[in-house]
């Protein structure tokens, strides 16, 4: 299934360990247990638990997201429906993605980003604590499946909830949503060629698994460390990706949100696009960076009050077409999984 056997047949001859003889472990199971018990596990500072109301809001937020996936067009069997509000995921496995709309006038984003940084309001999680950082995201575009001729693309949207402690452990629950297409030609092609089972939407059980431990470095708040973390030296395209990663992994406090906006203000190439509506139907303010060398545009949408990242999208510039998006639907501190 899925070419597993063929992959094994292909790669086994170059398996570096295929002839290796594994020496017995130097430590017995008993000794290893003693070692594990003797060496204290690194314990991250535990934040004091307080009740959070944020999670109570999750269902409502998701309902808004499901009901108002704006800026997408769905096409029924009889032709295009030009509605700006898509059907709920699952109702029509045929969403053709349309880029987020913004005005044509644009100037350098630096002064607007600094102004936004100077007036940030607190958000609910700024006054909460908990064992886990919780993120609820909807993503599309990783990976994209492309037809053999390279012309037709499809990817499944994923709805992911992650509870992650600072030692990396926690839980991840991902639900595969409907296939979405960057253009009508791709939709036509893949609806002919995608296996019905694969194309069937909203029928997949959640994939739920525990997260193994990892070093989750603390989120820095200083300018120099943020410049490093956000890969400022590689330019605005890399910075866009890293800002998206940071907001998808950490609960970012207000001071750090402001500092991130100031970092962005100093990176050449970002244009201020003003008020936009993201795919969850939320109002935000957007900046873009056109990477002409790679025929790509990065778009970041921020909450105009709190400065939180709402969404990150990547486009190809010619033709103008969505490559990937991430919408951050909810962020919170919590003590509980699920």
């Amino acid at each position, binding site marked *: 299934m899925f070419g597993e056997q063929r992959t094994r047949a292909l790669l086994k001859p170059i398996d570096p360990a295929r002839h290796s003889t594994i020496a017995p472990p130097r430590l017995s199971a008993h000794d290893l247990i003693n070692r*594990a018990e003797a060496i204290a596990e690194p314990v991250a500072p535990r934040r004091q638990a307080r009740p959070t109301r944020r999670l109570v809001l999750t269902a409502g937020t998701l309902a808004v997201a499901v009901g108002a996936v704006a800026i997408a067009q769905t096409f029924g069997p009889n032709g295009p429906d030009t509605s700006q509000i898509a059907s709920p995921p699952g109702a029509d496995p045929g969403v053709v993605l349309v880029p987020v709309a913004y005005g044509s006038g644009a100037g350098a984003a630096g002064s607007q980003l600094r102004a936004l940084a100077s007036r940030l309001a607190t958000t609910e999680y700024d006054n909460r604590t908990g064992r886990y950082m919780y993120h609820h995201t909807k993503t599309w575009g990783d990976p994209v499946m492309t037809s053999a001729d390279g012309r037709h693309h499809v990817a499944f949207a994923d709805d992911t909830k992650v509870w992650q402690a600072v030692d990396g452990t926690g839980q991840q629950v991902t639900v595969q949503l409907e296939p979405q297409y960057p253009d009508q030609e791709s939709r036509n092609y893949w609806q002919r060629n995608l296996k019905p089972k694969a194309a069937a939407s909203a029928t997949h059980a959640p994939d739920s698994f525990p997260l193994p431990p990892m070093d989750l470095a603390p989120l820095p708040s200083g300018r120099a460390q943020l410049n490093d973390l956000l890969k400022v030296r590689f330019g605005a395209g890399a910075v866009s990706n890293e800002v998206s990663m940071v907001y998808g992994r950490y609960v970012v406090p207000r001071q750090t949100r402001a500092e991130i906006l100031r970092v962005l203000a100093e990176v050449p190439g970002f244009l201020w696009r003003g008020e936009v509506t993201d795919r969850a139907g939320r109002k935000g303010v957007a900046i873009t960076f056109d990477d002409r060398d790679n025929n790509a545009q990065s778009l970041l949408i921020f909450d105009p009050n709190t400065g939180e990242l709402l969404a990150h999208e990547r486009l190809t510039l010619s033709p103008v077409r969505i490559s990937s998006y991430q919408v951050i639907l909810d962020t919170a501190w919590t003590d509980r999984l699920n």
Partner: protein
Amino acid sequence: MGPPGKRDEDWFTRVYAADYGQVQRYGQRRLADIEAAAELAQEVFVIAWRRRREVPDRSLPWLYGVARRLLANEWRARRGTPDVLPMTDANLLQKPGVSGADATVGVADLQAALFTLADLDQEILRLVGWEELTVSEAAQVLGCTRTTAAVRLHRARRRLNDAMSYRSGSPAQQPVLASPRKAM
């Protein structure tokens, strides 16, 4: 994944005996240093004991996930002075004797082509091809859905084939591969 059974020393001894070799091989396939692979395997099981309540009954994918994260941590920590090299950086193909029975043009090309792929493409191929995980199990290691893993495998196989074709047609040139859009 049901609730874990009794997680005492007997349980750990069984898991250790059953899976240690596989976890060490995981390290050998990704590191140039066998000693480092043994250390990695021991560290994985130290964590498995400490986290024994979280280890699923089918433990190998979880153990591989721990190993993958440990390697990532290690690699990040040692970027300045990398004495533990990932296999792709170890120039393995030029080491005398390493290719051994594989010293055929086809196998060498396959190795070289594999090493040109992006890390995520290589990893899904290794997990399925070498660790012999199912796509669902590989998805657990990579932290993605089964469908996403299946698409990644499909895409990686095609890129591997493209890289092979490119190499055999024009050995002086390196294949140009699309970079992954986003690593989760």
